[in-house]
């Protein structure tokens, strides 16, 4: 029969799509679960065995072969096509995400396994067995080749995972619709209803194709390990609080800022060394970044503080620090203190507007330099601007990313602060949520690392710990002078280095 060659084309598409769904599941699984070798092995194994199950099940189908074949194909189209969006959306429920993942892979594998045996039986009276097996398998393997080439080379780079998934679903459904004509002579009565089903699947997938962005947006909410209790998109960033058994966490743009369980370690280490190093109790204190109010909480423990000026880019942060109950409790309602004034500004620009020589201490708590807009806040020029508004002898502490995970970045910041005319003592503390974290203590005059805290009763810091923070083990110590560059506004060496260093730890 002359339509048989067209059916082989059908085999080719079916095989291509089948392989793509397998690759999609493998890729997504290794992105979100890591360990790509294991994930790919598991998924390929599961998929192939599910195909075996499908092949076995095909033996149970007795009548209406053509109809069953096209129904199976539509099923593959819908489930395979929506597999990537479904997986992405369910990633959040970490506890049962693997169930969804492997379940989907199994279902798709089974359906795909059903297809070929049924098709072979449809064609059995039209070709000799020898030709049938040779042609069908040829096109099947060819389809696998097409799929394996198109997926990494064309579709993922051009469309991304989600659209690739829906796109192949559409192909599958379109082929099924076409099949209603190819197999019209053996379909019998139900053909119109079948076409309606096919059109419905195509419409559904077509709609999904236009909604991929929305799906991604929805999924983002879910991509945190714990339930989201508050999420807010401001012009500057996406602020998300999640709640776990141990406490709650703040994420900015998906990056963890603190965990309520151990943030005291981070903030005590950030704030108190500046006071310990200052020649006299600082009266006027500057905080750059730190809109969560946690650094301010520590500052207000210090005797003699008369004013605290806090500069944060995003007014939403101080607002949450004043109004979001769990955070207010954590920061001790720091912003209610009359000594505290919050300024809404980009610190890079704000420092030029502040009076010269104003501040006795400055606490700098910017997010890590993972983009150019943040990188400018770690430049020599910025530290020079900062110098202008410091009182003589003032002490500054600066969060400087991790000296362990991003060693070159850390030491570049240290060298940059020095290049702006500061004397710097690098130090570090352990914060379990982050790992080993690094800071700089800087003054414009020569000084020794502080030995004595100016307050007692802290949860993490005591005099012994204070002194020990200033010694560096070998794997975090300063690299050779040539290994790091001064971070300047015109080279943003830090942003480029930081990105490479952290990528290694992902």
């Amino acid at each position, binding site marked *: 029969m002359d339509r048989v060659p067209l059916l082989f084309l059908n085999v080719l598409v079916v095989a291509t799509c089948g392989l793509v769904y397998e690759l999609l599941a493998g890729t997504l699984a290794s*992105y979100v679960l890591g360990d790509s070798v294991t994930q790919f092995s598991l998924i390929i194994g599961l998929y192939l065995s599910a195909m075996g199950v499908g092949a076995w099940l095909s033996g149970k189908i007795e009548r209406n072969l053509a109809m069953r074949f096209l129904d199976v194909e539509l099923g593959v189209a819908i489930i395979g096509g929506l597999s990537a969006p479904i997986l992405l959306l369910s990633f959040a429920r970490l506890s049962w995400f693997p169930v969804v993942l492997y379940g989907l892979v199994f279902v798709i594998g089974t359906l795909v396994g059903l297809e070929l045996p049924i098709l072979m039986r449809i064609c059995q009276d039209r070709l000799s067995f020898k030709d049938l097996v040779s042609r069908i398998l040829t096109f099947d393997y060819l389809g696998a080749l097409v799929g394996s080439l198109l997926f990494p080379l064309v579709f993922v780079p*051009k469309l991304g995972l989600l659209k690739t998934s829906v796109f192949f679903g559409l192909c599958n459904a379109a082929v099924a619709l076409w099949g209603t004509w190819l197999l019209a002579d053996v379909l019998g009565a139900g053909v119109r209803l079948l076409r309606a089903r096919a059109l419905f699947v195509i419409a559904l997938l077509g709609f999904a194709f236009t909604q991929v*962005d929305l799906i991604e947006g929805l999924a*983002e909410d879910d991509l945190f390990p714990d339930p989201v209790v508050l999420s807010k998109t401001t012009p500057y960033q996406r602020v998300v609080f999640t709640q776990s058994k141990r406490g709650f966490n703040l994420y900015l743009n998906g990056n963890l800022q603190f965990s309520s369980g151990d943030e005291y370690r981070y903030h005590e280490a950030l704030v108190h060394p500046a006071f310990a190093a200052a020649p006299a109790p600082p009266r006027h204190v500057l905080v750059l970044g730190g809109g969560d109010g946690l650094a301010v909480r520590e500052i207000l423990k210090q005797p003699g503080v008369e004013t605290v000026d806090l500069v944060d880019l995003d007014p939403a942060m101080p607002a949450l620090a004043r109004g979001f109950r769990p955070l207010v409790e954590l920061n001790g309602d720091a912003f209610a203190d009359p000594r505290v004034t919050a300024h809404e500004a980009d610190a890079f620009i704000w420092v030029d507007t502040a009076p010269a020589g104003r501040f006795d201490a400055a606490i700098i708590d910017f997010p890590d330099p993972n983009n150019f807009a943040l990188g400018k806040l770690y430049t020599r*020029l910025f530290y020079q601007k900062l110098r202008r508004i410091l009182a003589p002898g003032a002490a500054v502490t600066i969060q400087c990313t991790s000296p362990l995970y991003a060693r070159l970045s850390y030491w570049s910041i240290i060298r940059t602060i020095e290049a702006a005319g500061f004397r710097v003592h690098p130090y570090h503390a352990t914060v379990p949520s982050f790992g080993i974290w690094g800071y700089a203590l800087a003054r414009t005059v020569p000084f020794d690392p502080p030995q004595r805290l100016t307050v007692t009763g802290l949860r993490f810091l005591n005099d012994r710990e204070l002194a020990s923070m200033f010694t560096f083990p070998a794997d975090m110590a300063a690299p050779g002078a040539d290994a790091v560059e001064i971070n300047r506004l*015109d080279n943003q060496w830090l942003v480029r280095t930081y990105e490479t260093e952290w990528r290694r730890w*992902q």
Partner: protein
Amino acid sequence: MAVTRRGALFGLGSAAAAALGASCTRDDAARARDVDAAFAFSPEVVGHRIRDGARVEPSPDAWRDLGVVIVGAGVAGLSAARALSAADFHDFVVLELESAIGGTARGGRTDVSPHPWGAHYTNLPRAENVDYVAFLRAHGAVEGLDAAGEPIAAEGAICRDPDERSYTAGKWFEGLLPVAVMNAAAAADLAKLEAQVARWAAFRDARGRRAFALPRALGSDADEVRALDTQTFAAWLDAAGITAPPVRWLCDYACRDDFGARPDAVSAWAGLHYFTSRHRETGDGSAPVLTWPEGNGRMVDWLAADAHPEILTGLAVADVQPLEAGGVEVRALDVATGAARGFRAKQVLLAVPQVFAGRLLRSFRDAPPAHLAEFVYGPWLVANLELHTRPGARGYPLSWDNVPYGSDALGYICATHQAGNDWGPTVLTWYEALADADAKAARKALLSWDAAACRDRVFADLRSAHPDLVRRTTRVTFARHGHAMVRPRPGFVFGAAREAAAQPFRGVHFAHTDLSGLALFEEAFWHGRRAAAEILVAQGRTG
């Protein structure tokens, strides 16, 4: 703080987002019509009023006697004023047609940010450009000299990183090189171009001069160098076997950017000048770019601050007439009131393009000297787009200079970039050099467009790179520079016309960047000083 896995996932996923984003809706056209568009200033209107200079006749009490009158408060005029002041000569005024100083290097400002109206950067000079280095150093843009005596630029003045990006195939990439369309052939051609640039950068003539120095007057006039002036850059590229489209685009972009003309209309000398005069043996291979939010308007203000001359703005000079008995009469029109004003000076400095000198100077009007016809100027359209929020983009983030590959325009500068202002409203300064071979026709076309037509032009140019631009733009204002840039056509830079035009004529002196055959701050600065020195000699002060 750590980058999460999620980041990697979304990096891939968002590739999908852009595919849809490019579609442009019907409301876009309607929205574009709602964006307020206007011309910022229209010198051509005044220009036409003063074309016929004879009708401006000041009443006898509207005359002033002075030592020197400088016509034009562009870079050349102000540089001359600064040099006169530095020599303790203060008996002069500067007359400027516009309401503000600066000419083609003028800056402006909106509520959000200062921004350029024309020239927007300069390159860190070499030590040999002594006066320019001293000028930049006095204003903190150069913070010192390195061991070799070469200037070190101040961190805040060097263009902030990320400095350049280009848009190719749906995505922004770092740098101007269209990396997405570079293939092996293009890479090979780029290497050829780089080798030529390195060769010319290393060149020294018998007197030790470079092939391409800034100012031009310090450069070589050896035969090999002059030979580059006898052919077009396009012909030279062909002969050098540099034909790959991405590299040719880069060359085309360079010529339009610096000369307002295409490679087939400028000399090979000019084309190589663009690349080689910026070449440095150190760093990343090119001289640091110095820039300010208002562009070179910042340096214009410095010139004015150093000179603190008496500047009369809104005064269009209509007629300049050397007198038989010595001295020169200058007749000018107050643009606002229409009143005529007269100035009698011992010397007049025409710090305007030669095409205007030819119209202002009565003897030139009556009998145009042959050299005038050699000065050909390309027109430019500059737009300042006021945005309430920044455009979204795939790929490399918003940079200082943002150039869509393949565009006939030159992309845009982000005015808030250098100030470190990264959030919220901004101003984008968009440039187009109307690079038609027929400059007159291009100028005529430019002047025939109304503001709405100009607005459509900008949006059309940027539509594919920024489908969301229209809805983020609150206002667009335009400057039309009819005689924006002199074109270094083959034979012009080493020809006789330039030198002839620079010769003083009966008490009238000339200073403008076009006398170098190139439109650059350094050249205007240099000619201003050169003319000031001539004037001081003529005034009997040997400087």
